């Protein structure tokens, strides 16, 4: 079977893992395809303009390096500064490396890494860098490091592979700027339970030998251990540098924390709020309420339970000539309070003229939804609502809503058509949405 592992890696190291394996279309190859992993494109394919819209906890370089260091992976000595004059207190020698701490990729290309030769130049550069916004992401701080003498660069990452259903190593003997043309990319499954020989086999596959083999294997194994213990979706070192003195050092790093696991990771408590700065106000609110919101340009606010149904409802609105104003998936088992929060969030979008609610109760009970609707409509009687509600406890929900005068649509297509028709009605000027 064809198993091509020609890995398309970033042009520049800061673009990070745009790991899209180029493969044949045979089924057996799926393992390699998905070396892109968990969320193949969103997590790994850090197509930078897109990644900020993905609600995952990406860490700044300095945060990732602190975690590396805590797990015994060597990182360069560094100081993080937020004001240019703080450089005066940095004693790492000259020239220095100044690196913008941003959550977007493409940092090097965007001029976010500089090598000032002395303090005067350093302060001037630091002033500029601290004001730099890279692809919509503001520079949070600067990381100051000495310039290392690098003998060679490697690429090393651990991700959870979607198709093989296990963590894998992705590594290359050519890291950094050369990596895109690398033909030496290795992927290796990490079987449960973990044993450190896997790291040694990986290092051997990379063509390493002698003390370098054991040193790189050690870093790989530590990277896996932190990937597991911190519940990460991605742990990446790019480049992993080998200095002229044969020290193995993580020069740059990327960590993505898994969303579902964050509540059992005390270490990351409170970090989500801090890292959501690139989301819109409503998207942040939705995220913190555990709702999946994507804001769109149309005027029909869509609220459903379940990702598939929400997408299907959105597709139907489009197919019948309407324009979705948002995608909001309440998820499974949403109770009255959560549904009400969801309704309020859709209601706050000024573009939304009609709210289309489509709930099929499985784990979600229709009466909980009905309770939220009754409460919502008491507060916003002027809002145009199209409601389709079916499934568990439907009878109870119908009774509750009978008093409200709200018409229930049993058929989704009918509901969508009605919502589209209502969305075309011109609202009087100054009408309250």
């Amino acid at each position: 079977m064809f198993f091509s592992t020609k890995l398309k890696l970033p042009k520049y190291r800061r673009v990070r893992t745009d790991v899209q394996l180029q493969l044949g279309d045979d089924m057996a190859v799926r393992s390699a395809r998905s070396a892109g992993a968990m969320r193949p494109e969103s997590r790994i394919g850090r197509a930078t303009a897109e990644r900020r819209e993905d609600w995952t906890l990406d860490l700044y370089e300095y945060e990732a390096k602190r975690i590396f260091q805590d797990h015994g992976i060597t990182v360069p000595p560094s100081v993080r500064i937020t004001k240019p004059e703080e450089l005066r207190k940095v004693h790492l020698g000259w020239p220095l490396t100044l690196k913008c701490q941003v959550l977007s990729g493409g940092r090097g290309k965007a001029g976010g890494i500089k090598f000032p030769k002395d303090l005067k130049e350093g302060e001037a550069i630091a002033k500029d860098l601290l004001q730099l916004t890279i692809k919509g992401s503001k520079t949070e701080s600067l990381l100051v490091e000495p310039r290392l003498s690098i003998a060679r660069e490697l690429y090393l990452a651990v991700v959870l592979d979607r198709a093989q259903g296990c963590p894998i190593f992705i590594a290359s003997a050519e890291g950094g700027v050369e990596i895109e043309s690398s033909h030496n990319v290795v992927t290796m499954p990490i079987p449960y339970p973990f044993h450190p020989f896997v790291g040694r086999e990986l290092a051997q596959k990379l063509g390493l030998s002698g003390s370098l083999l054991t040193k790189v294997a050690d870093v790989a194994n530590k990277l896996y251990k932190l990937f597991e213990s911190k519940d990460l979706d991605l742990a990446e070192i790019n480049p992993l540098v080998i200095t002229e003195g044969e020290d193995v050092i993580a020069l740059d790093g990327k960590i993505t924390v898994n969303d579902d696991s964050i509540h059992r990771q005390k270490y990351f408590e409170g970090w989500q709020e801090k890292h959501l700065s690139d989301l819109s106000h409503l998207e942040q609110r939705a995220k913190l309420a555990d709702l999946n919101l994507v804001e769109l340009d149309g005027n029909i606010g869509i609220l459903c339970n379940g990702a598939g149904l929400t997408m299907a409802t959105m597709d139907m609105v489009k197919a019948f000539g309407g324009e979705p104003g948002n995608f909001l998936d309440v998820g499974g088992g949403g109770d009255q309070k959560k549904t009400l929060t969801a309704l309020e969030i859709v209601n706050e979008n000024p573009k939304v003229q009609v709210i289309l609610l489509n709930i099929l109760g499985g784990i979600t009970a229709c009466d909980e939804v009905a309770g939220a609707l009754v409460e919502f409509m008491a507060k916003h009687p002027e809002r145009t609502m199209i409601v389709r509600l079916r499934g568990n406890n439907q009878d109870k929900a119908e009774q509750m809503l009978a008093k409200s005068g709200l018409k229930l649509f049993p058929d989704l297509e009918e509901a969508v058509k009605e919502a589209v028709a209502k969305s075309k009605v011109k609202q009087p000027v100054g009408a309250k949405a």
Partner: protein
Amino acid sequence: MILVNKDTKVIVQGATGKMGSAHTKRMIEYGTKIVGGVTPGRGGSDIHGVPVFDTVAEAVQKTGATCSVIFVPPYLALDAGYEALSGGITLLVLITEGMPPQDTAKLVAAVKAKGAKLIGPNCPGIITPGESLIGILPGSIFKSGPIGMVSKSGTLTYEIGLALTDAGQGQSTCVGVGGDPVKGLEYPEVLQMFENDPQTEVIVLIGEIGGNAEEEAAVFIKKNIKKPVIAYIAGQTAPPGKRMGHAGAIVSGGKGTAQSKVEAFEAAGVKVAKTPNEVAQKVGEARKTLTRA
């Protein structure tokens, strides 16, 4: 029908929790052979008329259950899964949403090592209409018939199930494999079961944008499936770069698009419907063709 029937003996892990209890009741009312619940510390009591045990091992020993439906909180799901496997359960239906994916990966490895089967996590479960409902699907939507359904989605499965039932196209079995990137049963395994199942005439596959499971399913169908397959892909109008609810549902860098999936299916001779009602319509057409042949 595949995987479950009226004789499948089922225990419920987490039967005394809010969700577990509500759905245990519903499953019993449907006619599912629920033989016990498992909640540590509640052994000796009963819930909705079935005995509660402290451990899965005891439950299996006393009831002969082969299937467990799991409703425990996400961070306890791995342990519950291990316990089910160790207790001798051969079909695990894991409803829990939000299970850490590395936990899922560990459970999937253990399930494979034991030769058992896992449906889920983050799934609605499985129903063989008129026989057994295991999970959270609303039973009233489904009717017995010759259509096999496999889906990544929960509520969208109900929607399409409803469209099929309304059109008089009952179902042999519906399997919701779940929307998580790492999971137990995947499309090909379920497709093969439907292919081998004498009751199933037409297969409905419900997919969504993101990843490439649908493209792989298309390749598998071309090679292995003789029965007609109708597909539906959710997220045809999703904007690129936005994650649409499910962890895996995102189009990025031109990958995982609805178009790519539709093309893969069409190349494999699979008809792709654009709306839930069209699924029912195409199923009807496929069955007519079968009768004529």
